[in-house]
C-alpha cells in the first residue's frame, strides 16, 4: 500500500468516526448499533497505520496485492452488517405487526364499551 492510500484511508476513517461520535451524541444512532461500526473503523485504521500486518494477511490469503486484501476484508464486514440489519428489520417488523394488532383490538374494545346499549339494536346479526 502506498503512503498516499494509507493517508486517504486514515483520513476517511477519522472523518466517519467523528461523524459517528456526533450522531451518538445527538441520539440519532444508539451506541449498541454503532459499536460494530466503531470497532471495524478502528480495525481498518490499524490496518492502514501498520501495513506490515496486512502484507502478512495478504500472503496468508494468497492475495497478490495487499490493498485487495483490505477491500476483501471490508466487503466481508459490510456483508455481515447488512445481514445483521436484515435480522433486526425482520424482528422489528414482527414486533410492529403484533403492536398494530394489539392496538386494533384495544381500539375495538374501547369502541364496544362506548357504544354499549345504544348500538346493540342497530348491529346486524352476530355479536
Amino acid at each position, binding site marked *: 500500500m502506498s503512503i498516499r492510500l494509507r493517508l486517504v484511508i486514515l483520513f476517511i476513517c477519522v472523518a466517519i468516526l467523528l461523524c459517528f461520535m456526533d450522531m451518538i451524541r445527538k441520539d440519532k444512532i444508539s451506541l449498541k448499533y454503532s459499536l460494530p461500526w466503531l470497532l471495524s473503523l478502528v480495525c481498518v485504521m490499524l490496518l492502514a497505520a501498520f501495513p506490515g500486518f496486512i502484507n502478512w494477511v495478504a500472503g496468508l490469503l494468497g492475495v497478490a496485492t495487499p490493498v485487495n486484501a483490505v477491500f476483501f476484508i471490508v466487503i466481508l464486514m459490510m456483508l455481515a452488517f447488512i445481514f445483521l440489519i436484515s435480522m433486526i428489520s425482520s424482528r422489528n417488523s414482527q414486533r*410492529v405487526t403484533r403492536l398494530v*394488532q394489539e*392496538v*386494533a383490538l384495544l381500539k*375495538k374494545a374501547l369502541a364496544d364499551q362506548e357504544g354499549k346499549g345504544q348500538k346493540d339494536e342497530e348491529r*346486524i*346479526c*352476530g*355479536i
Partner: protein
Amino acid sequence: MKKLIIIPAFNEEKNIDFVMDDICRRAPGFDYVIINDCSRDGMRSLCRRRGYNYIDLPVNLGIGGCVQAGYLYAQKHDYDIAVQFDGDGQHDAAYLEPMYQAMTEQNSDIIIGSRFLQRQGFQSSTMRRGGIRFLAWLIKVLNKKEIKDVTSGLRMVNRRVIDDFCRYYPNDYPEPETLALCLRKGYQADEFPVKMRERCEGRSSINMPRSVYYMIKVSLSILIDHFKN
C-alpha cells in the same frame, strides 16, 4: 359452542354488503368480525354506517397480519371455532354450517373448503391449478397427507389451532404454509367439498408476474416449515 367468522378485507367496499347479507341469512349460528386492513376505499365509513362488527387496523399489515388479528380476537373472546372467510364474495356462507357439522363428526382440528373434491363451481385457471397441484404434492411428500386445495382461504379451525395461529402466522401467501404447519404438529386436517364463486369486484392479489415469486416463496416456506420444531 362459540363460532366466529373472520373476514379479512382490503378495499372490499363494493363486496362487503353482499358478503354480510350472505352470512346473516345463511350462517345465523355464527358471530363474525370484519378485519379492515387499512383499506383505501370507503370500507371503514361503510362498516361504521352499517353498524357491522369490525376491527380497524391502523397500519396495513397484509393478509397474514390481518387474518392473525382475527385469530387474536377469537382467542381473546374465547371462541371455540374460527373460520376464515374472504371479504370479496368468493366464498358461500351456506357451507359454513355443514362444514362445522363435518368437522365435529370427523373430529378435525382444521377443515378446508375445497374446490377440487367435486370439481364444481369456479375452478381457477389451468396454470394456477397446476401450481396448486405442485404445492399439494410437496405437502403430501413432506407431511404424508393429501390435501387437494392447499391454497383455499376458506378454512375452519378449532381452539388448539387458533392458539397456534396466534403465536405464528406467516405474512404473505399464508395458506399452504399454515396447512403444512398444522400437519407437522399432528393436527387432523380434512377437506370439505365446496363451490366457489368468481370474485365479483376487484382483482385477485396474485397476478402473472407475481406468480413465479409466489411459487418460489411458498415452496420454500413449506420446505422450511418441515425443519421447524
